[in-house]
């Protein structure tokens, strides 16, 4: 049985305090006493909005918002990327777009995240998976749905899967996710 938590989570936030204890006089003894003072800590907020460009990868997101899954391919060698690269890693040549929506796909590796980065904590537990495609040399990182995250099993590796697309695109790689393939 898993151990029950014995500690409450630590969070920031709280009251604003006015008036910090400090010696009334700044005589040598009082100043020397400051060496024994505990540190003061303040909260600093930092928010920023970035304008991120998908650059040469942009067509992938346009495709996903139209329910197509694209990869890229070196035109000469045929080396194929499930996660698109604008240029081939071996030849340096510009790649071309190919449609891999209908390719047979399987789970190559996975995990169930019971914790996560702050942004994704509300979504836990969720399943991350690397997907392999028939005739494609590299993998694709995605969310796997339709499996019970509390019943994780190595048997999931090799499972046939198929893509599903969000109806309302967010222009993120999570516009596509995978589910167990229908027989």
């Amino acid at each position: 049985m898993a151990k029950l938590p014995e500690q409450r989570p630590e969070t920031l936030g709280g009251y604003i305090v006015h008036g910090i204890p400090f010696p009334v006089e700044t005589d040598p003894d009082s100043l020397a006493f400051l060496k024994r003072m505990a540190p003061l800590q303040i909260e600093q907020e930092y928010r920023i909005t970035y304008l991120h460009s998908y650059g040469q990868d942009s067509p992938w997101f346009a495709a996903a918002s139209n329910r197509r899954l694209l990869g890229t391919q070196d035109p000469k060698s045929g080396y194929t990327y499930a996660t698109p690269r604008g240029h081939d890693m071996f030849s340096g040549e510009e790649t071309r777009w190919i449609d891999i929506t209908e390719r047979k796909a399987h789970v190559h590796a996975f995990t169930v995240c019971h914790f996560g980065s702050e942004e994704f904590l509300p979504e836990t537990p969720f399943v991350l998976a690397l997907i392999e495609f028939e005739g494609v040399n590299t993998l694709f990182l995605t969310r796997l749905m339709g499996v019970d995250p509390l019943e994780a099993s190595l048997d999931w590796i090799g499972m046939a899967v198929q893509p599903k697309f969000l109806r309302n695109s967010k222009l993120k790689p999570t516009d596509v996710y995978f589910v167990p393939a229908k027989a």
Partner: protein
Amino acid sequence: MRPVFAVSGGVSKFAKARPDKTFQAVVKEAYDYAIADLSLDFPGFTSVVDGSVASYFSDHFTRQLMAGIMVQDYLGLVPKPGHRVEGGGATGGLCFQEAWKSIASGHMDVCLAYGFETMSHVETWKGNEFIALASDISWDYPVGGFYSGYYAMMVTRHMKEFGTTVEQMAHVSVKNHINAFHNPYAQKKERYTIQDVRSSPMVAWPLTRLDICVMSDGAAVVILASEEGVRRIEAAGGKIPRPLVRVTGIGRGTDAMRMSDRPHVDFDTFLRDYATEQERSSNETRSYYKKLWDHGTRYPGVHSFRAGRAAGNMAYKHAGIADPLHDLDFVELHDAYTSSELQTYEDMGLCRYGEGGPFAASGKAFMPGVDYGLKLPEKPVCPVNPSGGLIACGHPVGATGLMQAVFAAWQIQGTVGKHFADSRLQVKDARRGAIHSHAGTGTYVTVSILEREA
């Protein structure tokens, strides 16, 4: 290249949070220790050091750009030359090697490598978010960016491919935590069992909280010197233990940021480009690997760290090491996860690919004379992470690789008992050791060899 010696080092107390001091003052703790260990004072060392290399990973954690120059200033090193290096979790290892280059090239005779990280300034899960930004923010981070998740995916593939078990991984956690029980610098001092590891909260299946290192505040410094630098330090009144500790090999490797892009090469390519000399020259090992490939294994995929293999092979060639398991007296490696220690055994040639699990539970990587409460089938051969590693010591990223260098230098000096006030972790007659520093999912990896000067 000129001979390079690691003449002194210091490590601050690693802790969950160090609000008592600013990051500059935490570095000075480690710095003061290192120069005091040379029997020099602050002005005395300032007069002999030529310059520095600074190591810290993230500007996000401190919300302070150019933190390195603030440390350089605080240590009284301006206007001497200095620069910052950054390469994720391998930042400390890269810093050590950049300082090595400064000496080996003749650019400097005495060089200070210092590293630090203050990870406590944000909450744990925000810290995990910062770390996850060290993955492709177009393709990886938005899917659920979480480093523990990335490593967990890598090890599920290792388990499927090679039959590795969670109990084998838990042996690493038990070993490293119990080693750290004798290390006063360690953040965690706990005696765990295999059951404790498995029953601790699941973080990213199959990795539990005790399979994963913690975030830390801390600093470490290493002082490197040429033969002329050694003479200069001693002429200024410094005392350096003999025999000297010489850095005899450095190696580095890299790999694609996106795990999904890592290749899956065929058997012949593996043998030609990645096998160790030892593996290549053994008929039995070639046959072993052929069977793996016949069953579908490809390299490195996501189950192995190609950068670690490249770094190890390069460093071993540089240092003249043919049989790492027997030619090294100890290894301090980057065990951010129990799984990555097990995978690194294979990358560094301590065992063959696919044998990391049985190796972890064999006893070969354990310290002799330490009671782990485990029935281990074999005797220690090459202790791995005798200090307790990242899992128990903590992982203030920029300091970690330098902490390893300090502990390795003390092992070879034979001064662990003096520095730890406990000789239990001194590897007997340690002549040669390796330190291994590793960045996110194996993107940058460094291996450096330290050994006793003949």
